[in-house]
């Protein structure tokens, strides 16, 4: 379980493996902010291998999206399963994020 980072063209893709919860949200935040500090501006968080996210995980995505946008960048989400998508819809965060069914879909236009 953890976060795997890879560069696809000029987009930084973060794979969330397992969970994004109160116990590991700081780790994701730190990794992404480090990359933002290095100059990266295009980010995708890929949830293909993610089984579970809690409200803290949702919150860290909101926080990161805001910081990335303030730097002129963009954060997109990809591969939310049905359960994860439900949580985004309930909290209306599906209106805040660009959410794609696939990584390729998220990469298009980014």
């Amino acid at each position, binding site marked *: 379980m953890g976060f795997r980072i890879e560069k696809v063209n000029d987009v930084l893709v973060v794979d969330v493996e397992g969970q994004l*919860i109160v116990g590991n949200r700081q780790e994701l935040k730190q990794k992404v902010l480090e990359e933002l500090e290095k100059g990266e501006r295009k980010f995708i968080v890929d949830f293909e291998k993610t089984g*579970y996210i809690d409200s803290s995980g949702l*919150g860290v995505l909101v926080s990161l999206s805001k910081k990335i946008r303030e730097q002129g960048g963009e954060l997109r989400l990809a591969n939310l399963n049905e359960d994860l998508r439900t949580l985004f819809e309930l909290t209306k965060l599906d209106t805040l994020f660009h959410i794609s069914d696939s990584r390729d879909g998220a990469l298009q236009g980014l």
Partner: protein
Amino acid sequence: MAPDLILDIPNDLSSIEEAVDFVMQRCTSCGEDPRRLRLNLRVGLAEALANAMLYGNARDPSKRVKVEVAFQDSAITARVTDEGTGFDPLSLPDPTCPANLLKANGRGIFLMRKLLDEVHFNDRGNSVTLVLRLPRVLPDEGPEGGAKA
């Protein structure tokens, strides 16, 4: 509530997953709608535990959280109690309104209320009771009842 299961867990966020898994494994009467277990109960219970540890017990490692669970044919009831002074659950803002959508916090209790059929706080505000109604399986019919995710 007469609990079938009582857990006394440390105020440690890393113990949440194990506690939730333990409760989920002991629910054997919910087979008709596994998604309500997997999503609704799991998320609701985990949120209640996180809130108890972070806010109720103020991250104090010397404090503990009590979890009581009752399994019935018609419902699963879970009560999570912390050792804090409590809070006013009516004072929470709506995280879905535009002014709050960009805030990082404030979605835990909202999710609990959306995913569970009943959410009750005691007067002090340091104990929350969650109820997930289970679908009744009628003869020759599918399951019915309960909040949908």
